[in-house]
């Protein structure tokens, strides 16, 4: 039975529909990424699962509980990392972890947890003097100190430097390997691509695609060649030469509707060379996640 089940979730703020019929499932030992542009409804969805938002419609279950009705029971089993900290500004990192540990019956050892997220050296530094990356890692530690079965991480790597990202990714993978169900939201493709077992792309309150990374890349990615070149080249002439339709998807970004055979790629590059046109980049075969993402979330 899935740890998280969401069916037809609708969240409204007055007349604004933030979440418009989202379906989701996530299992134990799985990292699920909710990926979408800012304002897509990711945080509203996650905050409904955390029990902060009332749903206007739909069915939501976390560990078999209703987050709105069984909030108290759920708080013992769920770890939460909010988008904006939520730690007393004057409280030291170690002090905060020890305080949060006191809320749970069987918490992790605060000192070991600080070590694990790389904050042992700043244990006495108050929250407001930590760097953005350190604050995010402290927030992560506070989400984990109660040994949760589900961890909701809202934009966990936002504003975090490279080393900090490594720590956060390692800890998130350890959670997954320990059987925790991890739900993270991100607007960064790379984060979803690196971490997630399952990616759900959300846009304007709706799920526009869901699956593993390779499923998302294969779906709808028919054979094509895409390349970058100066805007406004003669696509009709190129189409004649290659023997397939050529469209300028956006200024300077072209798509050739043919299987990406070596011969077809050679024809494209030869034509460009003949017309003395520079080639900015060339992608053949499967789409990149960025292409899928942009295609699905393109604003009309």
């Amino acid at each position, binding site marked *: 039975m899935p740890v998280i089940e969401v069916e037809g979730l609708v969240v409204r703020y007055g007349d604004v529909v933030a979440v418009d019929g989202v379906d989701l499932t996530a299992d134990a030992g799985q990292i699920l990424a909710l990926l979408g542009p800012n304002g897509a409804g990711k945080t509203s969805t996650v905050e409904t699962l*955390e*029990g*902060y938002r009332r749903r206007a419609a739909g069915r939501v279950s976390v560990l078999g509980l209703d987050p709105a009705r069984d909030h*108290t029971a759920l*708080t*013992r089993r*769920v770890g*939460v990392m*909010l988008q*904006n*900290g*939520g*730690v*007393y*500004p*004057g*409280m030291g990192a170690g*002090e905060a972890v*020890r*305080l*949060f540990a*006191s*809320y*749970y019956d069987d918490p992790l050892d605060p000192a070991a947890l600080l070590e694990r997220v790389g904050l042992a050296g700043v244990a006495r530094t108050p929250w407001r003097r930590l760097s953005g990356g350190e604050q995010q890692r402290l927030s992560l530690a*506070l989400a984990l100190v*109660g040994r949760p079965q589900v961890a909701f991480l809202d934009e966990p790597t936002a504003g975090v430097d490279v080393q900090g990202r490594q720590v956060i990714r390692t800890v998130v993978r350890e959670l997954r390997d320990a059987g925790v169900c991890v739900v993270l939201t991100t607007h960064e493709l790379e984060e979803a691509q690196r971490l997630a077992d399952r990616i759900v792309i959300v846009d304007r309150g709706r799920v526009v695609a869901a699956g593993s990374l390779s499923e998302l890349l294969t779906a709808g990615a028919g054979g094509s060649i895409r390349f970058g070149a100066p805007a406004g080249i003669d696509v009709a002439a190129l189409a004649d030469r290659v023997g397939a339709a050529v469209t300028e998807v956006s200024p300077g970004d072209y798509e050739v509707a043919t299987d990406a055979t070596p011969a077809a790629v050679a024809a494209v590059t030869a034509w460009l060379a003949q017309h003395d046109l520079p080639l900015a980049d060339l992608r053949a075969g499967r789409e990149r996640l960025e292409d899928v993402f942009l295609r699905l979330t393109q604003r009309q």
Partner: protein
Amino acid sequence: MRALAAQTAAELRLTLRRGESVLLTIAIPVGLLAFFSTVKVLPVPAGVHRPVQFLAPGILALAVMSTAMVSLGIATGFERQYGVLKRLGATPLGRPRLLAAKTVAVLAIELLQVAVLVGVALALGWSPSPGEAPAAGAVILATAGFAGIGLTMAGALRAEVTLAGANALYLILLLIGGVVFPLGSLPTALADVARALPAAALSDALHAALGGGRGGAGAWVALACWAVGAPALAAVTFRWE
């Protein structure tokens, strides 16, 4: 129980660590008490010969207001603004234990204030009447009322507005609260309004209990109304995020 104890200790540590809070709750009351007890520039009620007799109960009232209304209101306002209250909502701590921890922390700070201020007042020659029980009752009622006012502001306004508003209210109630000079020195209409407010009601009740002035049943009625009404208003209007 462990969570409540840890939360209370954390609330106390954070309060004592904020310099402006210690200034407002300890240094200013002690300073006012010592200054006006030794420099006789303010009027005292008829029949009171030493200013400290009148000042000590009034300054105790000011101390209660500074902790329960100003310090609590400002701290809670910023906790709301920084998302601390929201984050705590996702832990098993729960709102009842959070409120209990804040209550115990406020009472503990008040005990500290009473110890310091009574010590200073005695050193300045204060000889209180033996009215500890009614004084303690008045302080508890006033604490509930002031906390209700502070939390109403904290739960509805931006933290910066609460900061400014609570400090402004502190200054106004200091002037019309029977704290450093008797209400009788004010114009009658203003004094009548002031008597309905919790600061004057508390200082009246403390003057009646500890000496230095007279207080009637009206003060107790006002204290009781604020003790019920203000927290009820806070409970209804408080927004946690």
